[in-house]
């Protein structure tokens, strides 16, 4: 019980300290986020193979490779995503051979992990 007034004082002190620090912390967090966004990646974070430098060059203008590396899509889904990025996010549309190089690379190195013992979904293909 005797602790209570003391606790209240501590809470008040902490609360005012938090509020006082907020603008600085906000600034430091904004800077930390910018630093994370600017963190340079090496092309070698992507799997080695034909088309890697094209993918690295073309696909890291807006976001980093984390989005690619975590993906596991079929060629068709990768192809569809190229249109989605162009239509919804202003990516320069990919066409012809260059598109094939990129989509082939993605499908080969970032394809579905496995189709499973039963050969994947019976309603596809």
């Amino acid at each position, binding site marked *: 019980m005797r602790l209570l007034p003391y606790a209240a004082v501590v809470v008040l002190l902490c*609360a005012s300290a*938090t*509020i006082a620090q*907020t*603008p600085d*912390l*906000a*600034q*430091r*967090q*904004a800077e*930390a*986020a*910018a630093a*994370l*966004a600017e*963190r340079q990646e090496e092309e070698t974070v992507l799997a080695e193979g034909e088309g890697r430098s094209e993918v690295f060059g073309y696909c890291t*203008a*807006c*976001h*980093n490779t*984390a*989005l690619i590396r*975590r*993906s*596991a*899509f*079929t060629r*068709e*889904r990768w192809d*569809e*995503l190229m249109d*989605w990025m162009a*239509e*919804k*996010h*202003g*990516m320069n549309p990919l066409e012809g051979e260059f598109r094939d190089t990129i989509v082939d690379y993605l499908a080969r190195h970032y394809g*579905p*992990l*496995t*189709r*499973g*013992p039963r050969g*994947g*979904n019976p*309603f*596809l293909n």
Partner: protein
Amino acid sequence: MAHQNPSERSVQELYRDDPERADALVWGRRGALQGAALAAMGAALGGSIPFARNMPSGLVPAALAQGANQPQFLQMEGKAPLILQGERPLNAETPEHLLDDPVTPADKFFIRNNGSVPDTVADARAWKIRIDGEVNTPLELTIAELEQRFEIVTRKLQMECGGNGRSGFSPQAAGNQWGNGAISNAEWTGVRLHDVLRAAGVKDGAKFTGQHGADSHLSAQGPAISRGMRIEKAMDEDTLICFRMNGAAIPQMHGAPARLVVPGWPGSLSQKWFTRLEVLNKPHTGRGMGGTSYRIPVRPIVPGSRNNGADFVDMESMPVRSVLSSHAHGTRLPAGTRSLDIRGHAWAGDLSVRDVHVSTDFGQSWQAMQVAAPPNRHAWQRWQGRIALPSDGYYEIWYRATDSNGRMQPHVAANWNPQGYGANPISRVAILIG
């Protein structure tokens, strides 16, 4: 390699290389592990599996189902070590065991950005918010004016990414591979959007909103995201224009100095760095509307198939979900532990949670937990209870919530869609005793 007997390699190795093939090799037809394979699995996990005979075929033990890559963690002042989903855009998920606080503190609040985090502003109180479109009197008000003119309310409100649970989908859906941790339940302070819209005078026939914020697209061309909702949700008493979170200024990462909070609906509606809301007589067409974005099929589609989403509908109230926050996935407990007090949170969009059930025998039997009433509408609910553990060894705690309409979390993610919204399968936490 293909000719090798499964018992000759460690099961962990097998699962790491090719989980589905390992599964097919290791599991018997009737869904029970056989002889040597059972021992190998137990050895790989570092213990025996008391309920092995009930383990359904095709399910990888939760302790092994972690994928090849170890998670990376965010390091940022003022933030807990959240699971890093990506640096640009910056996205990070809260591990479930860090979601134990009834009110989510700022450091444990997940991060979802569609674009770049804007710079801070010098004078938060002078930040302006516009209300325009189908209104009689367009308004432009500073935070200071909002505070002065309208009733200030404080509510505990769940805010969840529309894609929370996405990693449950098979085949993989596009977007951040969230587990269950893109959820928060902070205490928000602000004014009701409803009161502000009343002051502006919504015209007859106005049915939708479109909201705008100050963050720019990753390409630096235009806004990061701009979504809208039906006017009924905008008029809900829990939809707030907020300027404080947990009694302090809103953190920069979470939308300072003002954020719209639209609880129970996809978090992308809760516009960060909030600047403007348009009232519209037709659905909003901003970035993040239409197609497959934040939209789900009405007529289920073949998982993995191509679809432009033209006949999908906008995702509104989020589905029922639960987290277990008292014990981390992978917790090891002393030999002889025979019971455990566990707890977590559960929520269900605009609805509430009626029940939470837990199973420690791979879903063969379920036990009801106690579920507390929410402190206010749209807040998550505490669940807790005691489970019995008949022996030492490997266990999975499966936990499943049921909403107030009687719909429960399914065994696997349902209603697959290309961008992966609405996955809320039953979750599993692995623990080891001894």
